């Protein structure tokens, strides 16, 4: 089948106004932020999709998916376009990018039952703006909040900067609607809890567009008390000292919305005006006054208990000022893109993993040692460090952060620099029993380790794919390793 035939089939379902075949937009849709540098330099090695389509109803989504299922056309569900792991990258000639741009209604804000229902293409910022006016919040606040959309956030199991208090998106979604490749529309109702068998929300949450297309989401709401926010910051001797304090806070039952430890190298790029060559530990407590004061006292007690690792406290105003500038907007994304056109550099890469408290400090040191010893372009590294930014009762995450002077052709950048480092991080994490991806999703570029990530439980994932997408039309190459795409993984 050629692309013209694909377009003819699409035209039977959608009017021309909902079909985009503009060359620049198709080039842009060929890859996500994973290949940002190659994209900016116009050297992408992946094909553009046949079209980007903008359904306006669930029914249109169902008809599109059923048509693609019948004709073997690859579908890339898209909502927000802030993916960082290749989940939106296209590896097939005949591909439709189904964009939720026009599924953009806030359907209901139910203040009494504390839940809001929105279509997949509503930006989190738009929902938050509506909610904040009413003194409410979803509690979800990824850095991409101004740009990210609810469908994409749910499909990738995203997490926000306040997750230590509110949880990840999987803790927030109470119900949703999704469409399967055969056109079946499933509505998972909104209830406080259920015990009607396995929790089927989790078939859709985090499926990364490989099983179904999420069209509607209902999330929990919380009272919002931004005026009560309290910021605390400390300079500390090392990452391990900070991890000890984080654990102490968590196991004592406190839930600061922000709880982070930055390595010295990572602190340098965020807090150069006060880090003084040390690691940084910081917190934000939020909620009603009573909770905030109790959380503050709990944090201060934890810091006191491990004061051997403390260098000095940081002015809380500096932490508050940093936090106010943390989110990135579409302008920030565009500015980075423009910069990459002219400079042999970008804003760096991250690989985010998780493990239990005992493992995290060991994992951090192992990765640092291996990268410095084994990475053949270590002399090009301009930054190698990391931070923990999402904590739980049994452990925390690690965000490895690295950047480098790009001394190679733009089309070679990922395999020369990012891939070898990412491989070390993933190998070390899996070896120590952690999870290779904490919140970015597997995308395409960690799919070669999906089996290792799940071990014997991969059986469940494989059966889900076979059951819901037997023709393999949903987001080819994402989550599930495909030998045909191996050349892109090198």
């Amino acid at each position: 089948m050629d692309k013209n035939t694909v377009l003819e089939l699409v035209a039977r379902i959608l009017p021309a106004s909902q079909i985009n075949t503009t060359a620049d937009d198709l080039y842009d849709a060929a890859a996500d932020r994973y290949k940002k540098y190659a994209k900016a330099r116009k050297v992408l090695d992946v094909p553009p999709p046949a079209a980007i389509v903008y359904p306006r109803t669930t029914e249109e989504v169902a008809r599109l998916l059923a048509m693609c299922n019948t004709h073997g056309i690859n579908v890339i569900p898209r909502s927000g376009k802030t993916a960082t792991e290749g989940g939106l990258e296209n590896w097939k000639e005949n591909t439709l990018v189904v964009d939720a741009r026009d599924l953009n209604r806030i359907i209901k804000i139910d203040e009494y039952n504390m839940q809001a229902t929105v279509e997949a293409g509503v930006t989190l910022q738009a929902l938050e703006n509506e909610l904040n006016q009413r003194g409410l919040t979803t509690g979800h606040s990824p850095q991409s909040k101004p740009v990210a959309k609810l469908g994409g956030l749910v499909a990738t199991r995203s997490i926000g900067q306040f997750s230590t208090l509110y949880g990840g998106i999987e803790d927030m979604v109470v119900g949703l609607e999704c469409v399967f490749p055969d056109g079946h529309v499933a509505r998972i109702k909104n209830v406080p809890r259920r015990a009607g068998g396995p929790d089927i929300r989790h078939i859709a949450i985090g499926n990364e567009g490989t099983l179904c297309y999420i069209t509607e989401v209902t999330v929990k709401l919380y009272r919002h008390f931004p005026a009560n926010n309290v910021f605390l910051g400390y300079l500390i001797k090392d990452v391990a000292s900070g991890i000890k304090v984080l654990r102490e806070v968590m196991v004592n039952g406190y839930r600061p919305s922000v709880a982070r430890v930055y390595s010295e190298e990572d602190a340098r790029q965020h807090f150069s005006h006060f880090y003084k060559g040390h690691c940084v530990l910081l917190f934000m407590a939020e909620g009603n006054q009573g909770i905030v004061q109790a959380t503050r006292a709990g944090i201060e007690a934890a810091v006191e208990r491990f004061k051997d690792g403390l260098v000095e406290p940081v002015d809380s105003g500096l932490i508050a000022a940093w936090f106010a500038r943390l989110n990135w907007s579409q302008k920030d994304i565009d500015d980075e893109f423009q910069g990459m056109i002219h400079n042999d550099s970008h804003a760096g890469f991250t690989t985010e993993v998780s493990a239990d408290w005992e493992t995290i400090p060991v994992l951090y040191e192992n990765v640092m040692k291996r990268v410095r010893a084994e990475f053949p372009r270590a002399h090009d590294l301009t930054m190698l460090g990391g931070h923990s930014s999402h904590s739980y009762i049994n452990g925390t995450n690690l965000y490895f952060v690295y950047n480098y002077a790009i001394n190679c052709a733009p089309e070679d950048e990922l395999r020369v620099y990012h891939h070898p480092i990412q491989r070390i991080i993933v190998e070390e994490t899996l070896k120590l029993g952690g999870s290779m991806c904490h919140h970015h999703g597997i995308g395409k570029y960690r799919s070669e380790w999906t089996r290792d990530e799940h071990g014997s439980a991969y059986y469940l994932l494989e059966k889900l794919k076979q059951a819901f997408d037997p023709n393999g039309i949903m987001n080819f190459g994402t989550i599930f390793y495909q030998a045909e795409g191996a050349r892109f993984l090198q």
Partner: protein
Amino acid sequence: MKILCLLKPVPDVDQLRYDRARNVLVREQARLILNPEDATAAATALEIKRAVPDTYLETVSMAPRGARPHLEDLARRGVDQVTLISDLRYAGSDTWATSRVLARYLETRDYDCVFCGTHTLDGGTGQVPAQLAELLGLPVMVGITALAELDPRAGQAVVEVDGERALLRFAVALPAVLGFQYNPDRKLPYLRYADLNRDVSQQVVVLGNNALGLAETELGLRGSLTQVRRIEVDALETKTPLRLRADQEGLDTVCHWLEQKGFVQP
């Protein structure tokens, strides 16, 4: 045509830290980069080599041996020979002692022209090109923004120099030392993935003072005419913002400030 290009690996100044207690620059963790003006010179030489393939290009660096990975990449980018002059006895050399080492090596080589940067990031005195030319008995031109012509058979190069108020064009007799200004648009060619692990050991020559034979009194601190006694680092100050109204007085204040700082001519 044979071009020698001087290339200095320097610490990435963005990563240098200053230890105020000990009054020293902490260089240990700073990554090495090629001095940007030298890289412009090398990129210019490689452009010539691409246009005139029988051009022979050799880079010459005086640096610690740790700089070797950076320099090996030059061979993978198209340089014919990469020469690293490295000897612990050269530690502490000032620009004069450095020029003497470089000159001693260059005396052993045939060349039509010597390319280099005008200044280095870590020193900035711009003395090496002139001192080297003096030692070799060659003409020198620095601050070059463009090479209009390089014709060894005619014995002449034509270069453009930014004279601030005018672009100046000079003819320079060859052989000569030509010092380039940094030009972000003139970049070294990209390394390709297939070349990254290419063995270039045959193209890399490492030599020390045993080969050059300079006297101990000509080396390092002893051979230097100048010594760094103390480094002063300006403390960062918080400036008080000046808020102006969008009226004539405000405009006058801004214009006066720009003139004072030299951004505009009165």
